[in-house]
C-alpha cells in the first residue's frame, strides 16, 4: 500500500543502454540493508510498518538520498522510541537505538565524536515534542550538525493511539476518548514554529506525505537537510505530516485526505527558514591523544622534584590547623599555601574547606593537616593550631583546641583576649602588617610567615622561593609584596616571642 515516490522506480543496471526495451523495475535504494537481518521473524524483506503508514515513504526518501549522495557509509541514524524504534532494521548505515526522546542528545554527541559523518535524528511526535521536548530545543539552539526528521502523525502509534502533543483539537485518541479538550490538554504544539524561534538552525521546514506533489516536496526537503549535514552547515529540521491509518482507524486514502483536511490547516506547510547558503561550517576540534603532547600541555617537564630539607628540630611534628575568618580574608588561600609548602617539604598534607551555605557570607574556614604519617580524617576536629582572623573565629575554634597547641589571632581586628590558658597564644596584627605593606590582601602571607616562625616547620626564605610558582602569572609587584609579607609575619613572631 505504500505510495512510491517517483525516484523509487529504478532502472535495473542490466537494462541501461537498451533504449527501446528499457524496463523499469522496483529495487530498494542502497541506503537500505538488502536483507533486514536485525528484524526478528521470517519476514526479512518487508518493514514492520502498517500498510499506508508514512514512515515507509519517508524511510525510502532518506535511503534514496543517501545512495544518490554517496553517503550511506558515512551516515549514522539515531532510532527513537515509537513506531520508528526499529528504523535500524532498514538503514544500511551506522545505527544507534536510544531512549525515549533523547535522540537529539545522543545525536549531539555522535556528531561531535564523528564530525565528518552525517547524523540523522529520526523521531516521532511523542518522542520529540513530549518526552524529548527539551532535548530537541536545546540541540536546535546549539546548532548541532545534524538532520532531524520529525514525523508528525498527531498520535502515539506504537503504544496504541494515545494523545500526542500534536493531536488536534477535538481529535479522539485512546486517552482523549471524548476528543482533545484544549482546556485540559492544551493545544497541538506547532514544532516548526517553535524551532524557528531559535537563532542557530539553518533549515526549518514542514512538508506532508498526503499526495505525490507533497511527497516530492518532502523529497526535496529531505535531500537538503542531508546535504546540510554533509556540508556541516548545522541544524536542519524537517517536520513531515504523515499518515497513521492504524492509529486514526482509517484506510490509506482516508488518511491522506485527513492530513489534507485536518492537519494541514493546523500545521501550515512550507519553509520556515532556509539560511543554508550563508551558514558557517560547524568546526570541531581534533583531540590530542599523543602522550608526549598531553604531557606537554599539562607541563610535566616544568615540575621539578623538591629538594627542600625538612627541619628535624621543628617545634611541631604534626599540624592539625584550622584557619578561619571572614570570606575575603584569604582564609582558603592561607590554608592552600601552607599545604603546598608542606607538600614541597615532603610532608603528607591535606586541605579541606568548609563548604556549602557556610561559604556565603559569614565565617569561612578550612582544615589543614601536615604530617609525616598518612593522613586519616581531613577535617580537623581537634586542632593543635588555629589562625583566627576575626572574632567569631576565635570564639568558635579556640574551644576545640587541644592543650599545648598554638593559637594565632589577628589582633588588628580582634579586641578580645582568648580565654584558653593551656595553649600558647600569639597575638599578631596580621591585617595591620599587611596594610603597612600597602595591600590588605597580602594578610594571608603574613599569616603564613608567622606560622613558619611558630611551628619551625618552614624556612621563610624557602616559602619566598616558592611564591613565583604559588602565584603563577601574577605581576612582579604582587609577588614582591607577598614575599615581604611572609618575611614580616615571620619576623614579627621571632621579634616578639621566643619560639
Amino acid at each position, binding site marked *: 500500500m505504500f505510495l512510491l515516490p517517483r525516484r523509487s522506480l529504478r532502472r535495473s543496471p542490466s537494462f541501461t543502454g537498451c533504449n527501446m526495451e528499457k524496463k523499469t523495475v522496483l529495487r530498494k535504494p542502497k541506503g537500505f540493508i538488502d536483507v533486514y537481518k*536485525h528484524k526478528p521473524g521470517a519476514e526479512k524483506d518487508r518493514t514492520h510498518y502498517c500498510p499506508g503508514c508514512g514512515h515507509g515513504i519517508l524511510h525510502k526518501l532518506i535511503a534514496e538520498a543517501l545512495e544518490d549522495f554517496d553517503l550511506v*557509509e*558515512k*551516515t*549514522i541514524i*539515531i532510532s527513537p522510541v515509537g513506531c520508528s*524504534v*526499529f528504523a*535500524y532494521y532498514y538503514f544500511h*548505515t*551506522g*545505527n*544507534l*537505538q*536510544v*531512549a525515549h526522546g*533523547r535522540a537529539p*542528545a*545522543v545525536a*549531539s*554527541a*555522535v556528531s561531535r*565524536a*564523528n564530525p*565528518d559523518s*552525517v*547524523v540523522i535524528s529520526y523521531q516521532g511526535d511523542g518522542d520529540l515534542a513530549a518526552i524529548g521536548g*527539551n*532535548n530537541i*530545543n*536545546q540541540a536546535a539552539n546549539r546548532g548541532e550538525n545534524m538532520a532531524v526528521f520529525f514525523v508528525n502523525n498527531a498520535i502515539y502509534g506504537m503504544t496504541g493511539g494515545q494523545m500526542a502533543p500534536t493531536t488536534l483539537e477535538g481529535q479522539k485518541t485512546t486517552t482523549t476518548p471524548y476528543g482533545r479538550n484544549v482546556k485540559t490538554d492544551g493545544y497541538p504544539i506547532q514544532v516548526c514554529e517553535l524551532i524557528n524561534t531559535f537563532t542557530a538552525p539553518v533549515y526549518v521546514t514542514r512538508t506532508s506525505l498526503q499526495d505525490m506533489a507533497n511527497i516530492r516536496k518532502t523529497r526535496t526537503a529531505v535531500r537538503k537537510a542531508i546535504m546540510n549535514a554533509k556540508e556541516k552547515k548545522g541544524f536542519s529540521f524537517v517536520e513531515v505530516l504523515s499518515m497513521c491509518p492504524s492509529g486514526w482507524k482509517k484506510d490509506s486514502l482516508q488518511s491522506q485526505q485527513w492530513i489534507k483536511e485536518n492537519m494541514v490547516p493546523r500545521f501550515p506547510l512550507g519553509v520556515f527558514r532556509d539560511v543554508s547558503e550563508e551558514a558557517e561550517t560547524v568546526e570541531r*576540534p581534533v*583531540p*590530542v*591523544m599523543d*602522550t608526549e603532547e*598531553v604531557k606537554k600541555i*599539562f607541563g*610535566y617537564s*616544568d*615540575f621539578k*622534584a623538591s629538594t627542600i630539607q625538612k627541619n628535624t628540630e621543628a617545634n611541631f611534628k604534626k599540624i592539625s590547623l584550622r584557619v578561619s575568618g571572614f570570606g575575603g580574608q584569604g582564609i582558603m588561600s592561607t590554608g*592552600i599555601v601552607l*599545604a*603546598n609548602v608542606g*607538600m614541597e617539604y615532603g610532608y*603528607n*598534607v*591535606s*586541605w*579541606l*574547606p568548609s*563548604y*556549602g551555605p557556610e561559604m556565603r557570607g559569614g565565617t569561612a574556614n578550612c582544615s589543614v593537616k601536615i604530617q609525616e*604519617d598518612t*593522613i*586519616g*580524617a*581531613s577535617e580537623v*576536629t581537634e586542632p593543635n593550631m588555629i589562625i583566627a582572623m576575626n572574632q567569631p573565629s576565635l570564639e568558635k575554634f579556640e574551644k576545640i583546641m587541644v592543650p599545648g597547641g598554638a593559637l594565632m589571632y589577628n589582633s588588628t581586628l580582634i579586641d578580645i583576649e582568648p580565654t584558653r590558658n593551656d595553649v600558647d597564644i600569639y597575638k599578631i596584627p596580621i591585617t595591620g602588617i599587611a596594610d603597612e605593606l600597602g595591600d590588605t590582601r597580602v594578610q594571608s602571607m603574613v599569616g603564613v610567615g608567622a606560622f613558619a616562625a611558630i611551628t619551625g616547620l618552614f624556612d621563610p626564605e624557602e616559602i619566598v622561593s616558592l611564591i613565583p610558582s604559588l602565584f603563577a602569572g601574577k605581576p612582579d609587584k604582587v609577588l614582591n609584596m607577598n614575599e615581604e609579607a611572609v618575611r614580616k609575619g615571620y619576623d614579627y613572631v621571632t621579634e616578639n616571642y621566643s619560639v
Partner: protein
Amino acid sequence: MPRMLMKGNYAAVYGAILAGCEAYYGYPITPASEIAESASALFPKFGRTFLQAESEVAAINMVYGAAGCGQRVMTGSSGPGISLKQEGLSYCAGSALPCVIVDIMRGGPGLGNIGPEQSDYNQVVKGGGHGNYRNIVLAPNSAQEMCDLTMLAFELADKYRNPAFVLTDGVIGQMMEAVDLPEPVSEFPDKSDWAVKGTAESRHLINSIYLDHDDLERWNRHLEKKYAAIQKNEVLVEEYMMDDAEIVTIGYGSSSRVLRSAVDIARENGIKLGLFRPITLFPFPVDEIAKLPEKGIKGILTVEMSTGQLVDDVNLALKGKMFSDLYSRLGGNVPSAAEILEKVSELYGV
C-alpha cells in the same frame, strides 16, 4: 612524576584526560560542579569535547552517544542528578557501552542538602535503573585515588563494556591533597567490532532491544556472566592494622579516612582496632569479608554516612556467621574518630 596539590574533583578530571577521555558531558550540581568546571577548562586545551548538557538526562544520553562511537567519555554528578541518569545508565549497560560516571554524593532524599553523605550507595552499587545490570563501582578516599581510580574506571569500563562509577562524597571531592600525576595512557582497546564511527566498516548497531524472549534471556545471561567475571577478577580492598585486629571497622570513602584516624588513636591506647576498606563496591569484597569471622575477632563495626546501605552488603557477605554493627552519621555530618571510638567501647567493652 609531577606532584600537584589539587582537589579530588580536579584529580578526577586530570585522571580522565590522562586515561584518554575524549569527551565530557555534564550538568552542574553541587558538590560535583567543580568536575564540570575543571573539565570545561581542561578538555578544550586537549582538543577534547566539553559540553554542558541541558539536563542530567541529556548528559547521560550524550555519554551513550559518545560511548557508542567508541570514545572514552565521562560525566559527573551527585545524588539527584544520578537519580535522573538512571534510565540512561540502564541503556548504557543494556547496550554494553563503556563509560565513566563520577558521583560526588550529597545529602538526600529529595533535595536534601549539599553536605557529604554516602546515601547513593544503593542506587549506584545495585544498578539503580531498570533491568538486570550492575555498575562497576570504585570508591576512592583520597585525591590521588580520585585520579588513579578514574583512570582504572576507564580501563575496566572498556574491558567489560559496562558503565563504571567513581563513587565518593563531597569531602573527598572538595579536599586538596598531593597528587602524583601518572603517565598518560597510550594504548587503547580496539573497538572496531562494535563502535559506530561513520565509516563503511563501522556500520554497527548499538541497541538494547531484544524482542524475542529467548534472545533477551540469553542477553541477560551474558550480562550475568560478565558480572560474575567482574566479581571474580576485580575486587580491590585496603586493609590497615588488620593482622592482629580484634575489632574490625569497615567503611569506604571519607568514612574510611576517619576510621583510619580512629584506628591510630585506638592503637595508641592499646585497643586492637583494624580497618577493612572496600575500594571496589561492585564487585563487593564478599569472599574477603566472609573470612573475617575466621580470624576470631570480637566484632565488626560498619561506619557509613547512610542508614545502613553498606552494612547490608557486609552482612550478606558474612552469611550469618557474624553480624556487623552499624554506626552512621547523616545529613552532611561526618563521623568523628572520637564518636567512633566511643561506639567501639560501648559495643565491645574496650
